[in-house]
């Protein structure tokens, strides 16, 4: 049984239950129960119509739960009193679910968890494992999130930007546990792109595909971080790159540039270079200028300084860095890199060691310590 395929049916079934009168929280619970039963039953007894099966079982689970819960009696009567629409999907049920799960009243962590469960069809246990928290904690986070959005009307139009932020967060979490969150984020963004014609949805999808394409080359056999310039580019996934570039180009023709399209354009330029030396840094700087204009983010300015260092000179990169707050994450690492390129290994080694002390994760810390060690060894010999 294809569990990923089964999970793609999740939002549709929740939508159908919703139109039959179930509130979101109850519908979502019922569909999770139905998915669990499908995992149990389908391997021995596969249904001819998986969607019909899920709707029938989920609806039964919903009615059982509603009957068991006396406080829901009123709602149950109302639901059963209404004519049942057929299982045909209204065009935007799934879309509404994306908006609901990314509702601005939710914290980012809650929106992420709710999206993975209600849109992605993951179990609470899988989500808890992926985020390294106890299952009970994740269950509470999800049920609180459901309470928070319980007053939101299911058919209110939402803001695409909030949905994109949630999907971006899921993608960036990377990989831990038995669920590949990056792949899951791509699946959900792909599904969203099929529902809504929006240039930034396409931009985010392109960005994800282009970064995911590099994943096999990003870590060495011993688990160490391999920086972009040193990656074995033959290990990049050319199929994903081609798709990413294609999605991006279509989006760019609409001439409504946004943050994700600009980031994807930078990733595409890296993907386009057969060797690190062939990278078109001048164009990359131009895209960073666009990003600065769009976001005015200091983190973007920091990355821009690296690109300027390559396109122009390390000295120019250091000049671009000069106006930025040294407390910015990765500031010391960028400064170290530019100072080494500028022929100052003593300052670079000191800054790499400093960057290692404030590194936000272990692979980065090990990488930065290694850079400091490499320069110090050179300086000794």
């Amino acid at each position, binding site marked *: 049984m294809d569990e990923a395929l089964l999970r793609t049916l999740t939002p549709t079934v929740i939508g159908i239950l919703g139109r039959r009168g179930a509130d979101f929280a109850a519908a979502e619970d019922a569909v999770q129960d139905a998915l669990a039963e499908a995992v149990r039953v389908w391997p021995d007894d596969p249904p001819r119509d998986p969607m019909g099966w899920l709707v029938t079982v989920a609806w039964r689970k919903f009615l059982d739960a509603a009957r068991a819960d006396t406080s829901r009696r009123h709602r149950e009567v109302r639901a059963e009193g209404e004519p049942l629409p057929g299982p045909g999907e209204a065009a935007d049920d799934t879309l509404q679910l994306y908006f609901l799960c990314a509702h601005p009243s939710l914290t980012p962590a809650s929106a992420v968890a709710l999206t993975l469960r209600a849109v992605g069809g993951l179990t609470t246990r899988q989500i808890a494992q992926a985020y390294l928290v106890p299952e009970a904690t994740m269950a509470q986070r999800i049920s609180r999130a459901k309470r928070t959005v319980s007053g939101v009307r299911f058919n209110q139009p939402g803001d695409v930007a909030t949905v994109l932020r949630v999907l971006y967060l899921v993608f960036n979490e990377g990989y831990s546990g038995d669920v590949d969150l990056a792949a899951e984020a791509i699946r959900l963004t792909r599904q969203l792109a099929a529902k809504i014609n929006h240039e930034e949805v396409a931009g985010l999808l392109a960005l994800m595909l282009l970064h995911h394409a590099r994943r096999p080359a990003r870590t060495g056999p011993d688990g160490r971080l391999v920086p972009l310039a040193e990656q074995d580019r033959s290990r990049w996934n050319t199929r994903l790159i081609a798709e990413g570039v294609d999605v991006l180009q279509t989006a760019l023709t609409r001439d409504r540039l946004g943050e994700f399209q600009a980031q994807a354009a930078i990733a595409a330029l890296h993907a386009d270079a057969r060797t690190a030396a062939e990278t078109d840094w001048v164009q990359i700087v131009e895209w960073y200028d666009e990003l600065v204009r769009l976001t005015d983010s200091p983190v973007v300015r920091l990355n821009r300084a690296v690109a300027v260092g390559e396109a122009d000179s390390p000295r120019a990169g250091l000049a671009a860095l000069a106006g930025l707050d040294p407390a910015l994450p990765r500031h010391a690492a960028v400064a170290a890199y530019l100072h080494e390129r500028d022929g100052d290994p003593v300052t670079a080694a000191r800054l790499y060691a400093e960057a290692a*002390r404030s590194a936000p994760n272990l692979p980065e*810390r090990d990488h930065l310590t290694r850079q400091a*060690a490499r320069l110090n060894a050179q300086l000794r010999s």
Partner: protein
Amino acid sequence: MAKYLLLKHYRGAPAAVNDVPMDQWTPEELSAHLQYMEDFAARLEGTGEFVDSQALSPEGTFVRYDGEGRPPITDGPFAETKDLIAGWMVIDVETYERALELAGELSAAPGAGGKPIHEWLEVRPFLAAPPTITE
């Protein structure tokens, strides 16, 4: 089985025998060290004795309550003299002797010159749940 915390200090423990800052090692020595740590954890998973391992950032702050309606008081970042935890490993082993044996092995991780660091690790027993049968 009993759980023990193997605690590694940035500062506050007696100095290691082979006490050279990591950025002064060679890249090869670094690789050997990281590999040793990874192999150690993998081996304990294999023997069913591994529970958890985490590293901590050297940045930190002391915080305390300052009364109703006031924001908490902070002190820090830590002054140079204070004890500073670098990370830990939690193991679940049959005996105290086994905990000491494993801590010894962990302390022998290779450092500068490829020689064991001989760093001091703190071994602390967990206070477990009370047993069902007490008499």
